[in-house]
């Protein structure tokens, strides 16, 4: 496509109106030239000879008549070895290298290559000359940290391609040609290890998309047992400020049983990202023995960075996640917070003077949110292996009220809802996921009947608690009071989890099964007490012992001892019967 040029005819905030010469396309990237800087922008609407362009930077200083250079490309990211451990902004600029270049502040118009051009990677060919391949199939591999990074036929190449040439094993930079492919029209394509892909288009170079039915263990008991997430599934975490959304996401990013975690810090506090940036390299992943950073990519567009790039950041993140899925890996994308992204859409929509929907969000909000979450999923690749992208998005509803448009649009498309409650976080019951309002459509790591029983106790317990507030303890029967105590017991020893305890912070699926079964057995025993005080004392003690049990490693000898002790404690009160 020939590249078009344009002239600025209007500036309103970060929105430019540009008169263009030759053909341009919707969502094409152009650069507004300001002295020696070029400000990246994207076409968001075309009207006759005028295009509205959203600038990813501050627009101060732009003038009427200023030139705009179109690129002919959609907003794209670089895909190849070297993405892991990196920290990018929403447009895939590497932030640490930007800091080396520009110092403390983010200079506008500074763009850098996402993948270092001088690093050499050890390429081992897999495909042979003469082989016929389609997009997404493996040409060769490169070791990237702890993973084998697949170099694939570029996703953009259509049809069946024949390998004309492929290099022998050796060290190459990401831009050096490693293979030549011939397409069915006889045209030769030179392929390097790096390819580019437009962020707003899903990568679909796989053979089949499957139903997510395998649990993704997050090691958070309340999630895995009660409101599970599936590999390739989607879930959302709405909650008012201070309820612990970000902490929950941080814990998940540390412990989740996946290969790669992509963190999209979208329009949130810079300080929280800094914690991740500074702490992750220090934390050792027990599974791999390497630092957590080795499996992490961070896309960071904090609240004070330009709004338009915030919108791009979630797409950049999901594209990187899809890329690693193509290698047969399980990827978890954590987006914090999707509300900020929706607000970016709202700001752009307002500047375009579109007719607003509810709370001034654009009318297309729902479909945009839906198509984002739909990019998650578990797939069978062309070589038969499986990969998945699981998406967990936090939502920050205005006033903590879940009836607002972003929460509602998200609830329609996700498979699990982890609603955080202010009441629980005020009571320091963490994680503050509401055990009664939340839901999940995915299979739990423990037996469904057991979970249903526990849910029943929790529901009844909560009702009795409400009633007791009115009639007082005196007006409650001892049987009801026991149900209430049981529900409080389940809450304190299973739903709540101590994020600061080395053992309790992460509970494996096996342990969850074991402990949950044990607790269910204990609670099923008939118990009899002289009075309510005796019952309360008993449950206090039982809670204390169970909490101690939670803090003991499963392979430690005390583990069995403490379980025995619990059984004895319960046996004592059931002997009264």
């Amino acid at each position, binding site marked *: 496509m020939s590249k078009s040029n344009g002239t*600025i*005819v*209007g*500036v*309103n905030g970060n929105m430019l109106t540009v008169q263009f010469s030759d053909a341009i396309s919707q969502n094409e990237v152009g650069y507004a030239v300001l002295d020696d800087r070029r400000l990246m922008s994207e076409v968001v609407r075309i009207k006759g000879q005028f295009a509205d362009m959203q600038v990813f930077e*501050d*627009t*101060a*200083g*732009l*003038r*009427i*008549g200023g030139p705009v250079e179109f690129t002919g490309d959609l907003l794209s990211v670089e895909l190849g070895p070297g993405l892991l451990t990196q*920290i990018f902004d929403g447009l895939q600029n590497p*932030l*640490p290298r*930007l*800091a080396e270049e*520009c*110092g*403390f*502040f*983010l200079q506008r118009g500074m763009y850098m290559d996402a993948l270092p051009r001088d690093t050499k990677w050890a390429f081992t060919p897999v495909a042979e000359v003469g082989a016929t391949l389609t997009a997404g199939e493996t040409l060769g591999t490169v070791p990237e940290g702890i993973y084998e990074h697949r170099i694939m036929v570029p996703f953009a190449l259509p049809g069946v391609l024949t390998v004309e040439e492929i290099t022998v094993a050796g060290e190459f930079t990401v831009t050096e040609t490693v293979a030549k492919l011939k397409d069915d029209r006889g045209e030769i394509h030179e392929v390097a290890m790096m390819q580019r892909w437009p962020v707003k288009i899903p990568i679909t170079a796989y053979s089949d998309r499957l139903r997510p039915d395998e649990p993704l263990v997050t090691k958070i008991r309340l999630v895995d047992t009660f409101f599970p997430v599936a590999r390739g599934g989607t879930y959302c975490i709405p909650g*008012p*400020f*201070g309820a612990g959304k970000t902490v929950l996401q941080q814990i998940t990013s540390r412990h989740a049983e996946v290969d790669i975690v992509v963190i999209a810090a979208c*329009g949130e*506090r*810079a*300080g929280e*990202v*800094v*914690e991740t*940036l*500074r*702490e992750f390299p220090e934390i050792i992943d027990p599974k791999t023995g390497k630092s957590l950073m080795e499996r992490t990519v961070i896309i*960071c567009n*904090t*609240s*004070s*960075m330009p*709004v338009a790039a915030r919108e791009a950041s979630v797409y950049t993140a999901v594209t990187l996640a899809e890329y690693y899925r193509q290698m047969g890996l399980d990827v978890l994308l954590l987006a914090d917070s999707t509300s*900020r992204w929706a*607000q*970016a859409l*709202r*700001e752009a*929509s*307002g500047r375009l*003077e579109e007719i*607003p929907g509810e*709370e*001034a*969000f654009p009318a297309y909000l729902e479909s945009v949110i839906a198509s984002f979450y739909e990019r998650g999923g578990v797939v069978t690749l062309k070589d038969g292996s499986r990969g998945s992208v699981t998406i967990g998005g936090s939502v*920050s509803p*205005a*006033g*903590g*009220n879940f009836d607002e448009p972003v929460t509602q649009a998200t609830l329609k498309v996700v498979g699990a809802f982890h609603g955080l409650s202010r009441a629980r976080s*005020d009571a320091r019951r963490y994680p503050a996921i509401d055990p009664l309002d939340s839901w999940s459509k995915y299979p739990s790591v423990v037996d469904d009947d057991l979970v249903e029983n526990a849910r029943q106790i929790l529901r009844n317990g909560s009702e009795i608690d409400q009633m007791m507030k009115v009639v007082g303890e005196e007006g409650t029967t001892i049987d009801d009071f026991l149900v209430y105590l049981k529900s409080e017991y389940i809450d304190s020893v299973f739903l709540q989890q101590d994020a600061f305890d080395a053992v309790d912070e992460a509970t494996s699926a096996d342990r969850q099964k074991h402990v949950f079964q044990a607790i269910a057995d204990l609670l099923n025993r008939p118990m009899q007490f002289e009075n309510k005080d005796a019952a309360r004392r008993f449950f206090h003690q039982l809670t204390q012992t169970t909490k101690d049990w939670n803090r003991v490693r499963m392979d430690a000898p005390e583990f069995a001892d403490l379980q025995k002790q619990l059984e004895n404690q319960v046996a004592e009160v059931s002997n009264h019967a």
Partner: protein
Amino acid sequence: MRKVYQEVENIAGNVINIRARDVAYKELAVVESSMGTSLAQVIRLQHDEVSLQVFAGARGIATDARVRFLGHSMRTAFSDNLMGRIFNGGGLPRDNGPALTDNLIEIGGPSVNPSKRIIPTNMVRTGIPMIDVFNTLVESQKLPIFSVAGEPYNELLARIALQAEADVIILGGMGLKHDDYLFFRDTLEESGALSRTVMFVHTASDPIVECLLVPDSALAVAEQFALEGKRVLVLLTDMTNFADAMKEIAITMEQIPSNRGYPGDLYSQLASRYEKAVDFDGAGSITILAATTMPGDDVTHPVPDNTGYITEGQFYLRNGRIEPFGSLSRLKQMVNGDTRDDHRAIMNSMLQLYADYKSTLEKQSMGFRMSEWDGKLLEYGAKFEKGMMDLSVNISLEEALDYGWQILSECFEPMETGIQSKLIDQFWPKDNAGAAEEKPELVEA
């Protein structure tokens, strides 16, 4: 010499439109008319039509006003001469001192590269137990004080300004009552703190556009001091007035409102100011404390709500006291582990007991019988409110912790506090001839 335009086409609210060429977005202009001279900023360009926001308001601007573009965007002077000075939002002196024109810096500059930030580790001591002990303020933190009209939030800010360990204090006043402005000025002057203070003040009667400039000017100056390695404390009051000024201007500009009339970018606008709080890797820091009044004491109002999502916690100021519940310093655990061994224990158990006291109060008001334990709690609650929560209390962290032990020992047995025995042995007051001392003797006898 730059061209002068003399044909104003439209005037609406504070915005005037003229036809001009080769004007840059956000460029400043001088608008002269018979009623006076004011700065104005370009806020929209459409072909050759330029919309200018007039800082002093459009009142009295004639259709033949002279408009001269300056070729740069909003700037403010920066040097050590700023210390002790008072300016308006537009950077002009308010204190009869000379105008400063040297070393001009752009305001509303780019944001800090997150990889140049560090995890904050220094406590900011304020001498207020409810902050120092229970919700420690941390260098580079951004914290709002949620309050309602009539509460002494300005007095609180002034006290923090006087007592906090900071090299430079920058006060940004938005929509201040003139009395409050004088209060700040006089308080800082009397205590001698004015010499390390820079004030940017917009009073309620000043033009509304200048209100918008206050936080940007204040924070731009703060950033420069921080880059020089200084620890800067920025006090902003009241951010709700700032948001309301934005609302007023957005609506006159016919922008589509999102929630209760506020513009859709309220979150981003507030965030770009609050996010200036920073601990630079290899330079100084900026800590921001901002008063945010909650209209109707409603925390779900768009301004406090959006603020809560941006800031690292919040203080609730109610009935002249910092509420222990709801108030939160998200960064406190980064510093309160290294102050004194008993800090966290005192913080947790005193709050826990105070919560119990609150539920006892509820029981009492419903007419339930008071047990012995309830009696202890009632005594404790009264002492806690008087000795810790009252804003007039002014003691160091260590004194406050000691005082905490004393209150506990006056009201409870050691085991009733739930504090681990190691700390009890170390800190429980020995000389206090309270119940705690007598009981063991009885057992021995």
